[in-house]
């Protein structure tokens, strides 16, 4: 049997209606960095929670250091020496480095706390184990994100009992120049014989730092790759995606009819810099990018939800002012937000009330809502969009995800919006409704609207859009034409496994 720091085998985890893990397995050897990759929904987060003891699996076993954990609870997992570096930092801004490292595990002295001892231990640990020379008295809020990440790592490892460390997207919030700091720290931990499970969407990091990689797809382990080099990325992507593109997508009949949106050198305060893009009336532009790439912030900014620092935004040759969302709406911008339950809909209100929120000025007379007009307008939309059940008085909360999304759409369709921004339009939507939403997007473009689709689903982007821009660490790193674009290539560009300019030249 091969040596193993920890292993999962035959793990099954079901949620109502979904099998999130289907006999998944994972085996990490001592002193190796083991990558775990897979698309969104492949089961990576679920397997981390099973390993953490947060979820109890229906079947399967977890073995750490040769001992089977039965059952695996947060306590037994911690006692076995497994530590988690969560994606969120979870630090108190006004605490010092020392206080943060020892939070919840303070060392007592004869009188109160052994403050000096704690400080020396924290500083020594950060310097020698993670390569960060820093005073224990500095406040967290004065540190950069990479330094905070190292403090978070130190907190998990300071007790010296760690044998296995699980990193969940450790570089997602970092700027590219900060990534190296964290990568070097992880390399040091590996030298100390600690087994590391490295979960990330950034394939370039995976191929840089990992010795072996396990690929998940739809809750199953579909491959374990040895001898990882930069050239392995293509194999990983093939294993991750591995599916046929279905004929969910409508034929692209729209044609560019007007100048549309032209964004030049747009920057916000911190999340993205110098982004330029354009999408004509009658065109569909895709935006690809991982979490932390600035994609979501870019979309929010175009809709006036975030402040811009510099850059210009024009629509059909005239300046578009997007300081606030209300301003954006008045000038014909429509957003279908990613979190529709939170941002897109007032769930306790009826379909009519939601559908007419943006157009109240049209259905209202001297400030009073004309309920009859509002309802009949909504009933037309319900018919046009095939919202089910077709009842304008239904409370929106009771509708399925796909139908809720259509209600959000109904609101904007009744305005005379010129620019539609779809942010993750089909998250949590079933396959049938997906196809309908794609058709609606196509119809909008065919009628001459400029459409932007921001999505984490490469298949969706390729299927719906004309061109796709790729966001990475706050910058637009290039544009890919959708025609003839393979999903693998798009994933390679989004995850940093390949440079967009090389792909565009090759294509």
């Amino acid at each position, binding site marked *: 049997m091969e040596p193993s720091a920890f292993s999962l085998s035959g793990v099954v985890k079901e949620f109502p209606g979904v099998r999130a893990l289907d006999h998944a397995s994972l085996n990490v050897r001592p002193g190796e960095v083991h990558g775990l990759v897979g698309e969104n929904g492949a089961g990576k987060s679920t397997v981390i929670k099973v390993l953490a003891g947060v979820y109890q699996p229906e079947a399967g076993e977890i073995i750490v250091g040769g001992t089977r954990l039965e059952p695996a609870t947060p306590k037994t997992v911690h006692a076995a020496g497994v530590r988690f570096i*969560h994606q*969120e930092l*979870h*630090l*108190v*801004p*006004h*605490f010092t480095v020392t*206080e943060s490292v020892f*939070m*919840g*595990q*303070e060392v*007592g002295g004869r*009188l*109160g*706390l052994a*403050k000096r001892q704690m400080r020396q231990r924290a500083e020594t640990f950060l310097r020698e184990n993670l390569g960060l020379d820093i005073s224990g008295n500095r*406040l967290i*809020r*004065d*540190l*950069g994100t990479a330094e905070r990440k190292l403090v978070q790592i130190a*907190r998990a490892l300071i007790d010296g009992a760690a044998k296995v460390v699980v990193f969940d997207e450790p570089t997602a919030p970092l*700027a590219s120049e900060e990534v190296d700091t964290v990568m070097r720290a992880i390399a040091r931990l590996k030298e100390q014989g600690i087994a590391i499970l490295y979960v990330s969407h950034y394939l370039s990091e995976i191929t840089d730092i990992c010795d072996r990689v396990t690929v998940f797809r739809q809750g199953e382990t579909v491959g374990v790759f040895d001898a990882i080099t930069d050239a392995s990325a293509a194999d990983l992507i093939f294993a991750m995606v591995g599916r046929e593109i279905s004929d969910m997508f409508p034929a692209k009949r729209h044609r560019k009819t007007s100048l549309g949106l032209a964004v030049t050198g747009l920057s916000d*305060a*911190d999340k993205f810099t110098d982004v330029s893009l354009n999408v004509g009336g009658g065109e569909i532009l895709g935006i690809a990018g991982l979490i932390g790439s600035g994609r979501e912030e870019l979309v929010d900014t175009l809709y006036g939800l975030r402040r811009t620092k510099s850059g210009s935004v024009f629509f059909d040759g005239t300046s578009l002012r997007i300081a606030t969302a209300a301003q954006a709406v008045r000038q014909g911008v429509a957003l279908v937000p990613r979190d529709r339950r939170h941002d897109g809909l007032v769930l306790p209100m009826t379909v009519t009330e939601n559908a007419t929120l943006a157009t109240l000025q049209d259905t209202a007379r001297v400030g009073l809502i004309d309920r009859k007009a509002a309802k009949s307008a909504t009933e037309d939309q319900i018919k046009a969009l095939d919202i089910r059940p077709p009842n304008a008085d239904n409370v929106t909360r009771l509708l399925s995800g796909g139908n809720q999304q259509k209600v959000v759409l109904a609101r904007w369709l009744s305005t005379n919006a010129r620019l539609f921004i779809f942010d993750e339009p089909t998250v949590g939507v079933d396959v049938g409704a997906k196809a309908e939403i794609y058709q609606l997007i196509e119809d909008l473009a065919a009628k001459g609207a400029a459409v932007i689709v921001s999505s984490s689903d490469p298949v969706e982007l390729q299927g719906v859009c004309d061109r796709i821009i790729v966001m990475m660490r706050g910058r637009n790193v290039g544009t890919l034409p959708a025609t003839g674009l393979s999903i693998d290539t798009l994933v390679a560009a989004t995850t940093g496994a390949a440079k967009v300019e090389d792909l565009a030249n090759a294509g």
Partner: protein
Amino acid sequence: MQADVRGGPRLSEIVGFLPLVIFVGVLVYISLNAPNFVTVRNLELVLMQSLPVVLVCVGLAAVVMAGGDDVVSGGIDLSIPATAVLSAGITAQMLSLDYSLLSCALAALLACLVVGVINALLVTRVGMTPLLTTLAMFVAVVGVNNVITSSRRINVDHPWIIALRGTEIGSIPLGIILVAAIVIIGYFAMHHTRWGLNLQAAGGSKDAAEISGIGVNLLISHSFVVAALTGYVCGFFLLARGSGSSPGVQDNLMLEMVLATFLGAAFSPRRVVTMWGAVLGAVLVAAISIGFKSMGVNVFWTGLIKGSLIVVVVAFSAISQRVR
């Protein structure tokens, strides 16, 4: 990127300092205009006057540190002054019925603990926001006290209570020594024990504390009980200061408590509510009250000025959080 990281806190530090600057400015103005304001005798008077506020500030600081310093959703306990008045009312009423001081003190302690525990349960178990919970409790507890004392003044001349005001040990008033001891114990518990650090962690970031295995709700409960205890002790100082229990003291006490505690954040190097900051804030607020009095400023104007200062302090704390 780096410039942003360093530039942010600096701006927020400047904004965080402004309330302090305004306060010191007002004090300088007073000392230039009021004769004999800066004398040992007068400063002792200021300290004596500030003792009840200092005590409740210690309690409020504990609650804010455990619950976070967001004025609306964070930790706050407005009921402490009411608890103090209840403590004073029960003691005065029972003394007037010829109970021993010990039994009065025990009865008052029990009543105050009940208030603290109810606060804690409502906030941590029922999940109510501290602001609304403790505001309601403030009203309720004052109501209970009105029932007990029939809302009238009760004179107290028990020598032990008067000693809090009159007796001196080596020329330092006993009251100041006792309160200083309580403040030092509070400071030590908050900054030099595991409990205190965990309490601060709970208030600083609830998620971070929970992930580190800290029982956040238990610590929040502790803070409400500590607050009730400071209110309890404060009750005796109210009796000493007023030679008895009189209705209505709680209103001004609450105002000065909130003002002093949040003003205190300007003293802390980390710009957060701390024990020392709250105590210094309490002394400053008392100095201003007395200063206005010795300048002969109309009492009604004093209320306006204090209210404005609260607005200024809270506004700057909100601004400094936003620019942070």
